[in-house]
């Protein structure tokens, strides 16, 4: 059992980091094509080794700690962001058996850990002793705080329908019935869309990348960072998005459930597809303004999430949902 835990943990961590690294390449390639460019082509066949080159470059850079920064927090924050973002991956089942941590309270724990990744982001912004970084950090916190609520509420929809907080049970329920986005479609689809929106906002991705709005805040939290520490902040964002898409496909798209073939493949396929859609969004949409974002969260998403939860509860009481 313990050996299995070690092996599956190492496997999942390696898979997540590798997919993230090549997700970087894939994003640049995709973004290039969406803008009629080529994307990376030089390093390796069709630029495939670009992330490795990037990593090597980052690793070699000189770490600079600003004069008035809080040295310990400044140094500690970026690795911690990556750690928390990565930890969520442990809870996602990549197959009926392949989940490093199959925990009964999976859903609240995933949301809690995902929200936790925010504290080191704020630490980074505060420790930099830079106005842009602090403003970015404050925006990041306020934004994630607002989007945490719809995130929890929409995650409750599959919990109510499946009657369990265990992610594996939720997938098994979808396996027995049907994927949640398919039916009940009036519940599953809006919840899925809301979940994706909230997840994007929590991971600070476009169209909700207000905390690092380049045109206003230089680079937000990462303004003062160099080298691998900058890399960690960057990596955390990508890991967050990747794991977020994995969670979304687990909760709404049936997770490892597929008509044929190995279950891991289906999970990876769904995750990567969702990941690509998120990049498609990223390279198509413009950034919202901070106040628009807050208004969207509190005026629309929170009541919509509540309505979905109550609707799901009503649905389970009706003869069709029992």
């Amino acid at each position, binding site marked *: 059992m313990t050996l299995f835990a070690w092996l599956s943990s190492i496997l999942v961590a390696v898979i997540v980091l590798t997919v993230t690294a090549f997700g970087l390449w894939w994003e640049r390639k*995709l973004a*290039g*094509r*969406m*803008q*009629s*460019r*080529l994307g990376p*082509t030089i390093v390796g066949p069709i630029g495939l080794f670009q992330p490795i080159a990037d990593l090597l470059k980052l690793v070699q850079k000189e770490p600079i700690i600003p004069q008035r920064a809080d040295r310990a927090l400044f140094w500690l924050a970026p690795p911690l962001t990556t750690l928390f973002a990565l930890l969520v991956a442990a809870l996602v089942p990549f197959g009926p058996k392949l989940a490093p941590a199959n925990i009964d309270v999976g859903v609240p724990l995933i949301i809690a850990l995902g929200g936790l990744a925010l504290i080191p982001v704020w630490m980074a912004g505060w420790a930099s002793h830079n106005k842009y970084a602090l403003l970015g950090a404050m925006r990041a916190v306020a934004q994630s705080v607002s989007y945490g609520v719809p995130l929890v509420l929409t995650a409750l929809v599959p919990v109510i329908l499946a009657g369990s907080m265990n992610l594996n049970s939720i997938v098994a329920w979808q396996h027995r019935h049907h994927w949640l986005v398919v039916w009940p479609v009036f519940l599953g689809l809006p919840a899925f869309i809301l979940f994706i929106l909230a997840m994007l906002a929590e991971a600070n991705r476009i*169209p909700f990348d207000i905390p690092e709005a380049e045109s206003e805040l230089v680079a937000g939290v990462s303004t003062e960072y160099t080298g691998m520490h900058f890399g960690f902040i960057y990596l955390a964002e990508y890991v967050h998005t990747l794991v977020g898409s994995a969670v979304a496909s687990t909760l709404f798209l049936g997770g490892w459930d597929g008509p044929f073939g190995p279950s891991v493949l289906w999970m990876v396929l769904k995750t990567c597809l969702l990941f690509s859609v998120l990049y*498609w*969004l990223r*390279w*198509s*949409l*413009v950034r*919202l303004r901070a106040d628009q974002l807050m208004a969207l969260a509190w005026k629309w998403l929170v009541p919509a999430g509540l309505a979905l939860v109550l609707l799901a509860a009503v649905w389970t009481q009706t003869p069709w949902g029992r």
Partner: protein
Amino acid sequence: MGYLLDGLKSMWTTALNAIRPPFTQEFPKVLRPHPERYHTSFALLHDETGDEACTGCGACARICPSQVITVKLGKRESAITQKKRGYADDFTLDLTACLVCELCVQVCPTDAIVMLKVPELPGFRREDLVLSMPRLYENEKSKPLGWSNATKLMAMQDPKAGAAKPEPSKETAPAPAAAGAAS
């Protein structure tokens, strides 16, 4: 609502772009076809007798708006015609500040300086962009030369004579990738 519609529209656009072939070409490996009068970097020529055409008069250095040309005049006997004439003892053209205005070509009394048809590759060091005399003569041999020299340009500007036209270039082959700045 407007944001949603615009967002969907732009997503449609990016999706269409993604399945179209890209416009970008990989510059050093693939070159776009250039117009006839495309010109960059320079070369110094030899005349029909095989001697250096430059007489070191310095007209190019004087007209150059950004003063990137330095010519050192020297007088000596030609090794081929055994006549005493002017030579450029040294000729340097600094491309870092060159405007590519082609004035030096226009004023050259002996058609000694012409421009090249292939783009110069960027260099890794500043010295890569300074064209010394050996490099300028080397360019004559190794690079495709541009159409224009002083005589042709003057003929083109003459209102009476039918304007000379640049000949259509036969050469479209890309330059060897590494042969640019490194010499």
